[in-house]
Structure formats: C-alpha cells, structure tokens
C-alpha cells in the first residue's frame, strides 16, 4: 500500500475541502506558522487551479451579474467603506502599531501639559479669589470665577471622564475577546470529546477516596505498564486474538491471555446476558460472605430474594459502600474508553493477588454488564462493553462501575466508582 505523509495528507484534504470545521481551523492555525505547510498547500492549490482550468470555457449569462450586483448593492450600504490610506496601513501591522504608539505618546505628552497648565491656572485663580474675599469658601468662589476658568474645569472633567470611559471600553473589549476565545476553545474541546472514535482516558478514584482525599494515590508502575501495553495492543502493535471464556460449574469466567507480562481479560466474549447473570451471582455470593470455594457450586442455587437484594444494592451504591467488609487502601484505577468498550487495569495494589474479582458496570437504565475473573500475579487489563445494549455510555451517566473481590484468605471488599475523578484527557 502506498501512503503519503500526514502533513501532505492534511494539505491534500484541505485543498479538496475534505476537512471538517474543527480540522480545518486546526490546520489553518498550523498553516499560519509553518512555511513548509504553506508551500505544500501552495503546490496543491496550483494543481487545483490547473484542474479547474481544464473545464471547457463557458461564458456566464449576463443576468447572473445583474443578480450579484443587486445582492451586493444591498450589502454595500452596510459595509463600511475603509479609506484606502488606512487600508494600506492595516496591512503593515508593526508600522501601524509603532505609529499608534507614537501618536498615543504625543497625545499623552500634550494632554499632560494641558492638564498641568490648567491646574496651575486653577490654583492661581483660586489664590486670587481667596485674596479678594477670604470669608467665602474657595470652591464656591471657583464656581463663580470668570468664564475661562469654568470652561477649563469643565473641559478637564470631561476629558478625564472620557478617558475613563475609553479605558473601560477597552477593558470590556478585551474581556469580550477573551470570553470569545474561551468559548471557542470550549466548543472545540466538547466536539473532540463527542467524537466516538477517540480514546478517552479516565483516572477512576473510588467514591470514598474521592470524598475524603482530594489527592488520590498515584498509579502503581504495574498499572501504568498495563495501560501502556493495552494501548499498544489497541493500536495493533501487539497480537489482538481474544481469549476464551470458559464455563466451569455453571459460572462463566474469562481465561486471561498474557502479553508482555500483562494479563488480558475480555469480558465481551460469550453471551453478555450470561456474563451479567454470572457477575450478579458472584457478587451476591461475595456480599453474602460466602467463601470463594463455594462460589461455583452455589451459583446455580441463587434464590430470587437474593437477586432482588443485589438489584437494590446496585441502585444504592453509597449505602453498600459503607458496609464493605475489608479494604486495604482505596485504589486509583486507570481506564480508557475506546469505542463502545471500557478498558480498566487492575493489579495487586487494587485487589490482592489470587482474588476472585467481579467487575460490573451500570448504565443510566440500570442495565448491567461485566463478569468475573481471578487476578493473577501480573497486572491485568479488563475489557468490558459499556452497556448491555451498547447504547448508553456508562461513565457519562453518573453511575459507573463496581469491583467486588474475595481474596484467597477470605478477605472481601467492594469499590464503587460512581463519578469521574480528575480530568478526562481526550
């Protein structure tokens, strides 16, 4: 396959009008600063002109110009006609700025001189009035002073007010510009976040940690390595064959595939409904404090009452969070959303090695997805579909994910992730 470098590709798409608004704005901002890019675009544009020139020559009917003339004449009334002199100046930014600065300095010097002389005049006239009539208040006298002094005072007041108003206008204009820039930037960021083909990164902090500790613990090196490896796999730099889902004793559990010292668990494989059932059953058992050894045999004997307990638990995660039986330290988990899937990384800093882990996600409609697996010695990357029907993105609904584990020593724990912590970086 022949491919062309990205700059050239973007330039080609730009001249052929294939970039969307966001891409085009971004490209044009690069175009302003990159001579190389401008040269690329210029080359292709000349080609565009040549292709356009290759059309058989046709003369436009006269009526078209009449219509254009009419349309333009309407707008011409409102279009400000800029004198040619100023238009020429506006093309040389530095010269214009320098001229403006010089003009402003001259004005400031002149205004200052006038102000000084006016003040001197004012003081002189006040002194004269005080000398002539020492019993009357000086301000009163100043008001009644000769017409020239009154005019000067009024002029000074007017000038200072005008200056203040101009300064305020300048500040308002600056603030408006800044607000406009921020709004544009915000709109751009939002549009980027809405693009489904982007990978969005999350720094998940369990609810209790997020509430109690503004500075969540840093990610362990194992977790960082796991996410990097997962991304490499996502980008096709590593094998992507999915592992099998085994059915053992009526319960579904995923068998990990190990790549570069990282275990990959894919909970998308198999029947989602079964997986949900499996996760609920396992979660139920864990919450009821049964041992991990009993899990497989007891799974098929879940009673409807127990099921309803889990449902209500799912709807009220905070209350259950308070009843968690054990927890070493509240974890921080790296995650990213790629397409319709959520990818999270776990290791022994999150749950003890050898633990049976049930991972469940919820969407706004309380649809559940997930499954169970055993955490091995390696950091583990788990891929879960975002929702049962793939329609509602879980992490934007305010609900989220529950991780329940039982360690080989019988220790159990539950972590709730009902809100995003930190910023999400597209």
């Amino acid at each position, binding site marked *: 396959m022949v*491919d062309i470098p990205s700059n050239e590709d973007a330039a080609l798409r730009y001249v052929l009008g294939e970039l969307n608004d966001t891409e085009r704005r971004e490209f044009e901002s690069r175009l302003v600063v990159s001579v190389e890019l401008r040269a690329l675009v210029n080359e292709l544009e000349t080609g565009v002109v040549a292709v356009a020139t290759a059309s058989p020559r046709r003369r*436009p009917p006269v009526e078209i110009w009449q219509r254009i003339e009419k349309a333009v004449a309407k707008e011409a009334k409102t279009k400000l006609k800029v004198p040619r002199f100023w*238009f020429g100046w506006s093309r040389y930014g530095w010269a214009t700025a320098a001229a403006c600065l010089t003009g402003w300095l001259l004005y400031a010097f002149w205004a200052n001189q006038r102000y000084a002389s006016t003040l001197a005049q004012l003081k002189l006239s006040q002194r004269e009035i005080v000398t002539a009539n020492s019993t009357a208040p000086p301000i009163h006298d100043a008001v009644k002073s000769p017409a020239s002094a009154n005019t000067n005072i009024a002029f000074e007041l007017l000038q200072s007010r005008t200056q203040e108003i101009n300064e305020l206008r300048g500040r308002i204009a600056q603030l408006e510009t800044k607000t406009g820039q921020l709004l544009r930037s915000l709109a751009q960021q939002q549009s980027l976040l809405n693009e489904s083909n982007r990978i969005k990164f999350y720094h998940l902090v369990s609810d209790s940690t997020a509430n109690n500790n503004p500075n969540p613990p840093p990610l362990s090196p194992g977790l960082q390595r796991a996410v990097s490896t997962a991304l490499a796999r996502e980008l096709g730099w590593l094998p992507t064959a999915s592992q099998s889902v085994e059915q053992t004793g009526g319960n579904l559990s995923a068998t990990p595939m190990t790549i570069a010292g990282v275990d990959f668990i894919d909970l998308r494989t198999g029947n989602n409904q079964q997986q949900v059932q499996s996760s609920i059953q396992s979660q139920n058992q864990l919450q009821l404090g049964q041992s991990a050894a009993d899990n497989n045999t007891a799974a098929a004997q879940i009673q409807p009452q127990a099921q309803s307990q889990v449902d209500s638990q799912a709807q009220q995660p905070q209350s259950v969070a308070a009843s968690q039986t054990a927890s070493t330290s509240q974890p921080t988990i790296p995650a990213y959303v790629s397409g319709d899937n959520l990818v999270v990384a776990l290791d022994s800093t999150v749950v003890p090695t050898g633990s049976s882990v049930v991972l469940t996600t919820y969407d706004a409609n309380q649809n559940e997805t997930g499954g169970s697996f055993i955490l091995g010695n390696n950091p583990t990357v788990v891929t879960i579909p975002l929702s049962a029907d793939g329609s509602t993105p879980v992490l934007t609904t305010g609900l989220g994910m529950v991780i329940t584990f039982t360690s080989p020593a019988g220790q159990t724990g539950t972590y709730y992730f009902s809100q995003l912590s930190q910023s999400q970086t597209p």
Partner: protein
Amino acid sequence: MRVFKISASKVAWATDILAGKGKFCVESAEDQTTQFNGSEESPDFEAREEARLLTLVAGGDQHAFAALYRRRSRLIYSLLARMLIQETEAQEVMQDTFVQIWRRAAQFDSARSSPVAWMIMIARGLAVSRLRARSRRMTNHAMYEQELVSLEMEISGHHQIERDDLADACVSALNRLPEEQGRALQLAFFRGWTHEEIARAVGEPLGTVKARIRRGLLTLRKILKDYHG
C-alpha cells in the same frame, strides 16, 4: 523574453473608475468581448493585481468587485457548469460564490494562497455541498463507472465559446495522466467524492487513492508552471 500586455478589460475598468460611473459596467465590457484572459499576464502580476482588487473589495469598492468578476467569472462559471451539469444550478452557485467573495474578501490572505485559488476553493466548496445535498450517494463500483462516463461525455459534448490555449493545455495534461490517476482526480475534484468513497468504489487502499490524486495535482501544477514559463 516575455512581453506583458495591458488587457483591454483593465483599460475599460480604469475608464469606468475615472468616469466615476455608478454602475459596474460589466455588461458593456462583456459585449465588447474585452474579458480578461488570464494567459495574457504573468501569474505573479495576475496574483498581485487580483490581491489588490480583493483588498479594495474588502473595503467595499464595488468597481474593484466588478473588475474581479470580469477577470474570473468565466473560469469559475466553466468549473461550476462542469461540476453541477445543470445550468440553473450552476448559475445559482455562481451567484452565491461571488456574494461570498464580496463578503469574505477581508479574510483573503495573500501569504496563504493565490487569489484565483482562493476563489476557486469557495466556488468548489459551494458546488460540492450542492452535489452532496442532491441525494445520498451510493459509492459503489457501478456508480463510479457511471460518474466517469458522465465526465467523459461532458468533455466531448461541450464546445468552447472561445479558444483558450491555457484551458486546452490543461485538458490535454489531464487526459495524459495515467488512467486511474486521472479518474480518481476528476471524481474527487469535479464530483466531490471523498478519498474514502473512491477507495471503496474501486476496492483499492485509501493511501493509494490519495497518492494518485496528489500526484495528479502536482503533474497539472507543473503543466501550468511550464505554460507560464
């Protein structure tokens, strides 16, 4: 050595300005067949002159706008007629194009593109929007073949009102391109097919299609540069 001639349109335009006529006088210029012929001037002179006109248009100068129309209306109309086929639609887009040029003249930056390329991009953008709005396109191989046939019919079916050496040179250069290269370029440029749509229709990798279109554009650029010496 190249001798630069002052085109008759420029004389007509200057006369209009000096006479201070309220109307733009495009019609009279057309009647006298004094329209601008791009090949008479060097590309640099042409670009400078048109950039100057656009600057004036940005300031609301209607005479400059009329002069710009005289210089480029035929090229742009020819392109639109080829792209849209339907005469009425080409006329509507022609009007929209020049109204856009009037409105957006202040945005033109001669450091970023040449005036003619800038105007062609506006015209082509509007035409592509029309083409895409016409119907939801099926980008399969049959449609690909159908579009190619229509492109060839247009070329052979139309007779030029006036001979234009530059247009002839560009047409012959376009026809001399390797078949797949010329087809991809024409579909992308005249029919507004995206690279992905072409790749899907011909069943070839996207990169190959992009490279073909790019090579085609660069070949034609060379022809244009050689023509201007």
